[in-house]
């Protein structure tokens, strides 16, 4: 067993414990600055991790460190750092225990890191539960706000439901095949292709993961939770939790069950298409900004599923590339919302009126985020969508499966629909008729820094795609489809 492979995860857990213990030692008014400690630690871990690319397995193959795991670990570290910047801005709105909030983020992060390396159903379940249970607390952390509590309860109950499916599914798979390890399972899965109990088990596992990534028809919780949870939690949920769901989905489908996945192309196509349409159509009449982003997040799960449905290395690489751009874009959007909420009572889009005069940086950040989400060049979102569609159409040409063409068309229709509501947000910023308040919005240094990082990230990934795309392609090769 090679425990040094897990040093990153262990360090993050140590960080979480230290942050919690620091609660006793640091004066209350200074506790919020513990975020800097956390950010510095994560930054140091990220930098040391960049040079260190040892691969291997631990725990009898349950824990795997490969290019895919490394790609996602870097992703999660960057996401957690940006979310910590956001929490720093948010900290005075949390009634009790800001250091607990930080340490919960660290624990959720450790769950995501384990998820990135999970190569075993047991590891999968444990990491999923580590993430989900932490998020139950994170979503309901504003104990004095009723909506926050409501969001937490909804997430808890529906999450428990999905966990039930997940664990039941794992049990059925284990019961029929006697294997939990993905690599082992891949060897024997072919014999069980017609075994209905086995297939039901696999489906139930996918239901559990579908809940995490918010794919149709398991997306029902998203708008309410996104709207109610504290903004940094929402951002982390939208980026980290979703990405964790995707890495597990990729592993289960393409490492453990490649033969089954090949037969389920139609299922993936249908789910991807409906998810895109559902998210975009429901977002149309939305006026609440966070709810709108919740639906938008559903539609993006659909776009990401294009890469899964393509069943090819190019598709998976496109998915990873898209996620990288999505990270900066979504964090940027929630960062602006996080600052805006302080100055507004409602979360209505109309509250954005005159933002370009109140704070040009925030207006620019949100505008660029919307432009990137809508998939307009030269932002990251454009090239990501392009790669995903390209992968899908290529696969359609290889397999002569007309479903792929229909899916590409559906995705394009979804993009067109989404332009309307994304640009509705931009219009509200710049061209609102009645602007009630034009007082400037003061920005803290951490917000400015995080906004600039997000903008730079969106442009960098969009304008110089080769770096991230090469990493993504390398990572996708680890799946060995």
């Amino acid at each position, binding site marked *: 067993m090679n425990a040094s492979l897990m040093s990153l995860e262990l360090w993050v857990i140590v960080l979480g414990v230290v942050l919690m213990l620091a609660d006793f030692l640091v004066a209350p008014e200074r506790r919020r600055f513990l975020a800097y400690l956390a950010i510095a630690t994560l930054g140091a871990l990220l930098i040391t991790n960049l040079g260190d690319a040892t691969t291997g397995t631990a725990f009898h193959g349950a824990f795997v460190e490969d290019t895919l795991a490394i790609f996602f670990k870097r992703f999660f570290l960057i996401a957690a750092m940006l979310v910590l910047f956001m929490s720093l801005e948010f900290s005075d709105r949390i009634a009790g225990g800001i250091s607990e909030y930080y340490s919960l983020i660290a624990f959720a992060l450790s769950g995501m890191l384990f998820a990135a390396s999970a190569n075993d159903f047991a590891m999968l379940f444990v990491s999923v539960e580590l993430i989900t249970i932490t998020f139950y607390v994170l979503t309901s952390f504003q104990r004095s706000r009723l909506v926050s509590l409501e969001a937490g309860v909804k997430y808890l109950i*529906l999450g428990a439901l999905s966990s039930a*499916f997940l664990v039941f599914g794992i049990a059925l798979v284990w019961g029929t095949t006697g294997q939990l390890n993905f690599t082992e399972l891949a060897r024997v899965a072919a014999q069980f292709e017609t075994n209905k109990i086995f297939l039901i088990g696999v*489906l139930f596992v996918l*239901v559990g993961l579908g809940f995490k990534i918010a794919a149709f*028809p*398991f997306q*029902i919780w998203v708008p309410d939770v996104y709207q109610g949870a504290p903004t940094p939690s929402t951002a982390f949920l939208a980026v980290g939790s979703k990405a964790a769901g995707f890495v597990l989905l990729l592993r289960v489908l393409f490492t453990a069950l490649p033969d089954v996945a090949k037969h389920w192309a139609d*299922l993936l196509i249908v*789910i991807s298409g409906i998810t895109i349409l559902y998210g975009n159509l*429901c977002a149309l009449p939305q006026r609440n900004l966070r709810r709108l982003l919740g639906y938008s997040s559903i539609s993006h799960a659909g776009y990401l599923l294009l890469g899964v449905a393509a069943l090819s290395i190019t598709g998976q690489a496109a998915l990873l590339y898209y996620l990288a751009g999505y990270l900066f874009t979504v964090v940027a959007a929630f960062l602006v919302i996080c600052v805006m909420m302080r100055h507004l009572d409602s979360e209505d889009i109309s509250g954005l009126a005159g933002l370009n005069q109140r704070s040009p940086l925030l207006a620019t950040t949100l505008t660029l985020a919307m432009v990137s989400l809508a998939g307009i060049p030269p932002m990251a979102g454009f090239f990501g969508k392009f790669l995903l569609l390209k992968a899908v159409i290529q696969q359609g040409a290889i397999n002569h499966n007309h479903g792929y063409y229909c899916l590409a068309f559906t995705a394009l229709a979804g993009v067109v629909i989404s332009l309307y509501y994304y640009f509705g947000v931009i219009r509200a910023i710049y061209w609102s008729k009645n602007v009630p308040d034009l007082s400037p919005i003061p920005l803290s240094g951490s917000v400015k820094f995080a906004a600039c990082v997000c903008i730079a990230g969106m442009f960098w990934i969009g304008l110089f795609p080769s770096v991230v795309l090469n990493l993504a392609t390398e990572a996708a090769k680890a799946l060995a489809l």
Partner: protein
Amino acid sequence: MKYELLPWLILFLPLVAAGGITLFTLRYRTVSALLSIGAIVTGFVLSLIFINANGWQPAVGEISKNWLSIGTLHIDFGLKLDALSMMMLLVVTGVGGAIHIYSFGYMHEDSGFSRFFAFMSLFTFSMLGIVLANNFIEMFIFWELVGVSSYLLIGFWFEKPSAGDAAKKAFIVNRLGDFGFLLGILMIWGILGSLNFSVLQGQLSQNSLALGAMSTIAGLLVFCGAVGKSAQFPLHVWLPDAMEGPTPVSALIHAATMVAAGVYMLCRIFFVLNPEALHVIAYIGGFTALLAALIAVQQDDIKRIIAYSTLSQLGYMVMAVGLSGQTAAMFHLTTHAFFKALLFLSAGSVIIALHHEQNIWKMGSLKQKMPVTFWTFLVGALALSGMWPFSGFFSKDSILAQALEQGHQLPWLGYPLFITGVLVAGLTTFYIFRLFFVVFFGKEKSEIASHAHESPAVMTLPLVVLAIFSFIGGYLGIAGVYHGLFAGETEKSAGLAAALFEPFINSPLAAALGLCVVAIGFFAAFSLYAKADKDPLPVILGPLATAMKNKFYFDELYEATVIRLHDFIAAVMDWIDRWLVEGLCIGLVRGGTDLTGRALRLVQTGNLQTYAFLFVLGVAVVMYFVLGK
């Protein structure tokens, strides 16, 4: 090649100035002006250094960098460096520099001072780009940039509706020509597979029929671009209206440089044009020259007279290209840049002195009050008329001589155009001295004219410099430089005296006739206008004068035909767009989408039990989908 960096600097300095002014110094008027003036004057000095170091024919004719490659299409961003482009560099930066300096005085009271200089620098950059381009695409891009900067500068006083209209008119009319230009470029690329001038020239010199049946059409399509930019009939209507811009703009863009771009382009791509295309070009040029000269005779606005004169002179140049006389065309282009810039700037000096009065019948007797302007204008007028030994004489004579020479081979082409040229020379003298006598002699015809006084030195100094070049431009060896490029032989440098009398030896008939009509035109103008208070010509000419005054009703004709037809098509399209596309198609899709969105929203009740039910229902549906079949 020495100093390879210099041409890049010359090209990009004005762009840097334009960017710097727009981004940083809009509030600091003097800094902005100095940036802009500095950029172009430095460009002039660098051009001189470069030419001094490399001669007129550098060993390496072009430097280029690959800009983009798509499949078999390779586009370079390159600089063509030969006698043609380097002489044009000198003209653009030299004459342009004088005009920039003049503008410092002319625009001094204007609130958009910095903006003006930013536009001027943008224009200079674009014009230098046309001059230096080594391939069609690059030239086309700068061609359009010139169109844009011209639009910005004509509409500089955009608060005046007439200026806005004129800017639009200029841009749209130019676009018509550019459309043909682009088609021509695409056709040449499609057939020959290259866009680089040297490569194309090589291909066509090896096989002059390489363009096949499309040869004439391709040449004429490319010529369309020149028709627009150089304001040839039938697209000549925009240039007189463009006089709505500030006078330095008229001098720089609509006299010396931009409108000359068409002629320059024709000389640059001369190898594309086959004899049939050249004949059309020659006739269009000749016709434009005559038409514009006739209209100029009956105009009353000082700038419009000079504008029509520009049209007419451009007609000369285009005609010269059509007669295969690129040397003559470029020679006339160069001298014309001097004296026409001079005339415009002198006119500007008068206009400023009279507080923006432009009607010549409200001026008069300015000779004593504005001596420098008077003398410089006189030099310009004499050079324009083609009086020996002013520069215009030599260049115009070379065009007339070229026409005669062509006439020996193709009588039906050369002789009619020669007669037209001589006639126009007479008309030119007549209308410019009509203007001259009315403005500077006679009685003061208005109150303002009696209070006029001379312009400041920053304005008169460029006038003097331009006047000197208008005077001596004919025997500086400019023609020799062009001749060296186009004919491929270097002329021996004769002495000054030989240069002065060369035209009389080379082509005595052209020179003598040319001088005769100048004398006739001058005396006609003198006898009619030296003491006139109002124009005696309408009485003499009757309806013809009215037609001339109304520009032969071209605007009205276009209004009644082209614009009416355009409006009708636009109305039909508007109806289709509004009711069929927008109403029926988009309306249904939009309504349907919106309705679905609203309906789906109802699923989201907020009730946890419902959510859990839907979740499980979803699981059931997925299971049925996969296993139920």
